[in-house]
């Protein structure tokens, strides 16, 4: 780990001023940042500790029906907040399917949004990586790339965004509240993370010094609570990142889907909202054939970026499964193994 200066500002304004100096990085719980610093992957010259900033730790119902979550609310606290889990069960399930209890106890909302890719070549300073060193090349293109992106990638970078939390959030139209040197602004989460294009080193819309202060779920986002699930396929039962994942939410009226939301994780460098699939579902009856058509629409533009063509069909099946589980209804309590794709769909065939 490189040496660094350590600052602990006491207001948001001070934090923004401190982090606007080039070479600075915000430190929240450090569960991703310290890991990367230990590996020499990132080498910030100063850490601006935001883990105690006042005003960033609340979960607040706004008068217009929106819900505002402060950037340093811990992942575990959000997932176990009764009111939150009741209104946004797929978000709670996604949070509880990520990392471990210890990590969730520490990790913050802001840090989860801004966690970096788990691409092994990004993590290895001896490998070429355009994200770490623009123009250096990408060793993943000809390397171990089974788990890399199938949507939205470029020849410059084929990495994925690893967050589970962000997947249902993007489906729900979450908004990111940002404070920066030029003042306050808001960006929809869907536009917050950037696809690699020609500049994979630019990962989000944040300008230097900009701080995520909160996340907002818009009014009406809780209309999906009765039919909302997250499904995450992992290479082991628990404590692993997603191979592919899907968040599915349905608002039912009578026997039909009035409105649907679908987003995929582990497939692209951002949480992937599948609006084409949502259009297929709107007005349809909740049937296996419809879910399959929606899943096909979601993966319409997918292409393998290496030895990962299997992820395309896997993502279709996980999306269809998440939709079937959502249609069956949100369980009373989050299952013992959150987001497991192995759990049977009640009343349906296992391989529908």
């Amino acid at each position: 780990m490189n040496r660094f200066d350590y600052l602990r500002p006491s207001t948001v304004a001070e934090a923004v001023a401190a982090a606007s100096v080039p070479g600075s990085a915000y430190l929240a719980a450090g569960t991703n940042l310290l890991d990367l610093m230990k590996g020499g992957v990132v080498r910030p010259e100063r850490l601006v500790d935001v883990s105690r900033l006042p005003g960033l730790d609340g979960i607040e119902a706004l008068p217009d029906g929106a819900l505002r979550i402060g950037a340093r609310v811990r992942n575990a606290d959000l997932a176990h907040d009764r009111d939150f889990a009741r209104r946004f069960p797929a978000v709670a399930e996604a949070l509880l399917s990520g990392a471990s209890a210890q990590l969730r106890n520490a990790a913050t909302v802001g840090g989860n949004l801004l966690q970096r890719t788990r691409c092994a070549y990004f993590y290895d300073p001896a490998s070429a990586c355009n994200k770490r060193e623009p123009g250096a090349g990408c060793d993943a293109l000809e390397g171990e790339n089974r788990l890399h992106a199938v949507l939205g990638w470029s020849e410059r970078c084929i990495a994925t965004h690893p967050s589970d939390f962000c997947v249902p959030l993007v489906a729900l139209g979450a908004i990111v509240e940002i404070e920066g040197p030029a003042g306050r602004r808001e960006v929809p989460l869907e536009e917050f993370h950037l696809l690699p294009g020609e500049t994979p080193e630019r990962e989000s819309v944040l300008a230097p010094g900009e701080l995520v202060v909160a996340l907002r779920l818009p009014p009406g986002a809780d209309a999906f609570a009765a039919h909302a699930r997250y499904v995450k396929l992992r290479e082991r039962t628990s404590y692993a990142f997603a191979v592919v994942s899907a968040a599915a939410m349905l608002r039912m009226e009578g026997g039909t889907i009035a409105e649907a939301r679908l987003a995929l994780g582990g497939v692209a460098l951002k949480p992937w909202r599948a609006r084409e699939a949502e259009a297929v579902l709107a007005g349809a009856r909740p049937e296996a054939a419809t879910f399959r058509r929606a899943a096909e629409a979601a993966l319409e533009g997918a292409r393998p970026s290496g030895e990962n063509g299997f992820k395309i069909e896997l993502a279709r099946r996980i999306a269809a499964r998440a939709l079937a589980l959502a249609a069956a209804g949100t369980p009373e309590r989050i299952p013992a193994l959150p987001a497991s794709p192995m759990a049977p769909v009640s009343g349906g065939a296992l391989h529908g």
Partner: protein
Amino acid sequence: MSWSITLTVNGEPRRVELDDPRVTLLDLLRERLDLTGSKKGCDRGQCGACTVLLDGRRVNSCLALAISHDGAEVVTIEGLARDGALHPVQAAFIEHDAFQCGYCTPGQIMSAVGLIGEGQAGDDPERVREGMSGNLCRCAAYKGITEAVLEAQRRMGQDGWEEAA
């Protein structure tokens, strides 16, 4: 530049002068306070051997920067036994043969104390296993670990054991 931080470790206030801000909570405990019960397995958040209670919550001390936790309360495996009597989780680990080499054990026990305090798993072995999945055991003592956690939880409920944290 140097920094002075104060932590309450196993109930005792400890003041530590840091000449370098890079010290993790795990290294501070092991190297500066000679509390070597917390183990360094991976040093990267992947094994749970370094688990301690930080302000009452189980966390990986290898991924916590000590200086960021100035003023915090820390409980390590050394702080569980009272007046020579083992904590119910420690006792249950012995009774249920919940270890072999023992390297992961301090982390497992601290994680179990955290899990019981969180009160989310109840008496469902599946929920206990999932709740303990942040602690790897290369000797694969998982069966005994799950039994020990369930047993300790039962006993703590009966005896009204109060958390050390």
